[in-house]
């Protein structure tokens, strides 16, 4: 060290490339104010920009930008007739949501019939490590599993919103009297059961929501951006009014009426942070001198590469009671974040929720 001339210095990008860990540490360990290589404070996230309805052929879409991470999400509804569902078990209509909840235990239609189909694609060149012509990377597969699980565990899509019913009684009463008489003539010998079957509303089809995500560019923190895009796109989704046509024996969509907005419950927002350790090659465990650490909110690609431990918390403060509901916690790759830090991090996630909520 002593031999090297004191005038030797690198421009910042060279220093970052040659030894990224000391480069990041130099900024964070500064005694007056800790700042990251990207100029942010440790607990400062990148501002999020959301633009909805930008795709014309999707039923709902959103473009989310958070720094240099850009993701496009498109939601497209397709009609799935119940006759094409293997192992389909008929549902009766419920009058109230409460009644449905008590009866619907173990009847996760969304999950059983795969009515939500998220898919994530990391475009070639969105980050240097993504090369053309390779199968989906582990990151893409992991992300789509996480998005799929969160979609189901948050219950943000109400199963009632994707059901397409046929109400024979309504059709009959709406039609003129002659038609009704005609109908009765056809089924002269029908008993009460048959009558009930004909007048009871029948579930004929489901909307399947294909949720496609494309990362245009990726600069760290893909999950937060992906989830924000899914949420914004679903909130933007408008499905045309569909009804069963008994004459055509198919589901038809009303082209005259304006499409109906999909009902979305709750506003869960994801917040990710990475833990940066002072010593890169330090041993784990409490025996040695304490290894200092920084929790970096919304890590970019350089930071994500240098951090092992990552924590993601999904919170929803939309509930009127003022109590924060946690929807998901994912913490892996280290032992720094224990019970106390996790509690503190939920507070950070609440702040992030307010920021994102404003943009939606």
């Amino acid at each position, binding site marked *: 060290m002593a031999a090297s001339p004191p005038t030797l210095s690198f421009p910042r990008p060279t220093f970052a490339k040659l030894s990224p860990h000391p480069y990041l540490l130099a900024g964070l360990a500064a005694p007056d104010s800790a700042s990251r290589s990207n100029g942010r404070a440790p607990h400062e996230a990148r501002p999020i920009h959301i633009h909805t309805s930008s795709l014309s052929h999707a039923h709902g879409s959103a473009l989310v930008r958070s720094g240099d991470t850009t993701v496009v999400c498109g939601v497209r509804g397709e009609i799935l007739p119940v006759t094409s569902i293997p192992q389909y078990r008929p549902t009766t209509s419920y009058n109230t949501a409460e009644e449905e909840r008590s009866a619907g235990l173990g009847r996760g239609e969304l999950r059983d019939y795969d009515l939500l189909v998220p898919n994530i694609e990391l475009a070639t060149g969105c980050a240097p490590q993504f090369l053309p012509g390779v199968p989906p990377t582990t990151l893409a597969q*992991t992300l789509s*599993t996480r998005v*799929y699980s969160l979609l189901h565990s948050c219950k943000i899509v109400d199963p009632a919103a994707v059901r397409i019913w046929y109400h024979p009684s309504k059709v009959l009463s709406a039609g003129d009297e002659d038609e009704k008489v005609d109908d009765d003539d056809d089924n002269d010998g029908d008993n009460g059961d048959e009558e009930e079957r004909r007048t009871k509303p029948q579930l004929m089809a489901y909307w399947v929501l294909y949720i496609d995500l494309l990362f245009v560019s990726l600069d760290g923190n893909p999950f937060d951006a992906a989830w924000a895009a899914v949420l914004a796109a679903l909130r933007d989704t408008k499905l045309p009014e569909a009804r069963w046509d008994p004459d055509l024996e198919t589901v038809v969509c009303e082209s005259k009426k304006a499409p109906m907005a999909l009902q979305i419950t709750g506003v869960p927002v994801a917040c990710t942070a990475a833990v940066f350790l002072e010593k890169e090659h330090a041993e*784990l465990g409490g025996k040695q001198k304490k290894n200092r650490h920084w929790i970096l909110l919304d890590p970019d690609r350089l930071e994500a590469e240098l951090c092992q431990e990552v924590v993601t918390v999904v919170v929803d403060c939309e509930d009127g009671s003022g109590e924060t*509901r946690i*929807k998901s916690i994912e913490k892996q*790759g280290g032992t720094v974040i224990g*019970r106390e830090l*996790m509690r503190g991090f939920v507070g950070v996630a609440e702040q992030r929720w307010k920021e994102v909520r404003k943009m939606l």
Partner: protein
Amino acid sequence: MTVTAAPQAALSVLPRADGSAKYSHAGYTVTASVNGPIEAQRRDEHAYEAHVDVIVRPAAGVGGTRERHLESILQSSLTQIILVKNFPRSLIQIVLQIEATPENDYVNTKLVQASLNFSIMPALFQTAILALLSAAVPMRATATASVVAVVPETKSKKLVVDPSPRELEAAQSVHVLAFTSQGELLLAESEGDFTVEEWDEVYETAEDVCCKSETSKSDVDMMLDDDDDDAGPADMHQFIRSTLEDKVAADLHWK
């Protein structure tokens, strides 16, 4: 389906692998093999540390996105406790074969499921740790995992350790927590709908399941004497320890 209460484990069940273990608990049976340190492929080679490769094979069919996610969780956790810096440019391969999973008689089980499967994670985790110990891979600590579900009851909630598929379905939230043998939180995965207070309760329950004897050191010796014959071991960490002690005692029997 009958589920054995106490976990069962056997070490070095596969003759060709460097280390292996078979573990069954709460209806899950998993066999693991560990090979390492072995030569790494060029793309996996790391100049300063060993690459830990985890492969999860489901009981039926081929692995999908869910297995990739389980693999990535296990990989990042195990990399933390294996002394990877001791084996630069090499590979430690862990293969986990799921043999049996508890069935839910109330629903049609689909072969390919994309959603997370939290209840299998403790079985995978414990099997991997046992197999790594059997392969004598140097580790800075062992770790154990447990799954806790918060099941709503009339007007109250109850915490269920190792929930059945039926309970999982009714659960408001499901949590997997893993602790190192030093009592540090290594892994935390939760989904559902819960508050910070509920998570705290879950944390305490899971800590009890994983490493109760670590927090109350005083009665460890007493437990060691007692647990050999009657009941199950006090906690998961104790279970792993006694399994290894039995194996060592059996192997050194000729002396």
